[in-house]
């Protein structure tokens, strides 16, 4: 702005020392402001940072224009089906089915619980240990919960326990057993 001096202005400045001094001082001030701004920015952005920035810009441009990979989910679903008309009835049906399932589950659970207490002669025992003996396995594979007949005697039980301990699989646990303190050792 200050660089533009018309001929009329130049003529005035050549005769008026006060205006010329003012112009010079303003010019100096603006140069100072500009130099300070440049110095600040240059200190914040040294050459290495500019090089890094340039590399990042070009790296970003490498990926520019490539089509994005879209993974279809769920697989085989019609992609152009209108969402609004599809999700709302579906979500209603799912909610209704969930509520229905919950009600049936609660009723069945209550009924089954009552019925089990009415059954005579059979006690249900939940076994928390898995024994390797095949004859102790429940006929139906239901995980760790098995029915054990209450009629088994103590002798039979200890006999089964000893045979389980003597099994080759138990030998692997022997070092661990040695490391484990006994109840009588702990005071």
């Amino acid at each position, binding site marked *: *702005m200050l*660089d*533009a001096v018309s001929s009329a202005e130049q003529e005035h400045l050549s005769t008026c020392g006060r205006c010329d001094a003012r112009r010079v*001082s*303003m010019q100096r*001030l*603006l140069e*100072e*402001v*500009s*130099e*300070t*701004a*440049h*110095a*600040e*920015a*240059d*200190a*914040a*952005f040294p*050459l290495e*940072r*500019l*090089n890094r*920035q*340039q590399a*990042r*810009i*070009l790296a*970003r*441009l*490498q990926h*520019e*224009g490539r089509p994005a990979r879209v993974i279809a989910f769920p697989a085989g679903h019609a992609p152009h089906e209108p969402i609004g008309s599809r999700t709302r009835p579906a979500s209603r049906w799912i909610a209704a089915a969930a509520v229905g399932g919950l009600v049936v589950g609660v009723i069945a659970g209550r009924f089954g619980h009552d019925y089990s207490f009415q059954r005579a002669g059979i006690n249900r025992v939940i076994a928390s240990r898995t024994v390797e003996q095949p004859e102790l396995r429940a006929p139906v594979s239901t995980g760790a919960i098995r029915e054990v007949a209450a009629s088994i005697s103590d002798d039979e039980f200890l006999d089964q326990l000893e045979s389980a301990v003597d099994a080759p699989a138990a030998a692997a646990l022997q070092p661990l057993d040695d490391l484990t303190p006994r109840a009588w050792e702990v005071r």
Partner: protein
Amino acid sequence: MSRTPPRRAPAPAGALAPQAPLSKDSHLAAEIKRLVAVGERDAARERYGELVASQQRRAVRIAYQYLRDAHDADEAVQDAFVKVFTHITSYREDLPFEVWFTRILVNACLDLRKSRSRRLRWAVPMSATNEVAPAEPTAPDPSPEQRLVSRERATEITAAVDSLPDRQRTVFTLCHVAEQTTAEVSQALGLSEATVRVHLFRAVRKLRRLLDRA
């Protein structure tokens, strides 16, 4: 890394007419546009690297003056350069590239400032004091006393420029930091040249009042 070209004499109104000689970067941008148009994106990207190197210094100066944060300025400059390349086909070859780029850069800075103010609204302030970061010394002064004076002066100048209203600060930055003519600034900001001159006059008057020691 090329430096900012020396400041041109301010052009009169209408100086950005098609017959005005365009800069080397404008010709380079036109070439990149042609390469992209014919599908030679790799070659265009290579040439664009040259354009980035040429405009980068000027861009970070503008962005840093605007945002006052090196990380934000870095991000704004990167975004602006990426946006320029992705929209290079809409570049008008009869206009200076610098004007078009400056417009995109200023918009990127404005977007970043908006998002930063949004972030700060929800952030817990770390310190109650609002201190201005001390500026780096402008030149290695021989004595510590001179260095201190220089640093204080730089802090004063930074604070004075920061105190300008947004529009005045933008116009002042583009004219005196980015070294653009008022005609170019008017095109970059979408304002009339008279409006740019008024903002610039007010900015300079205020700075003079704040900084003039005489």
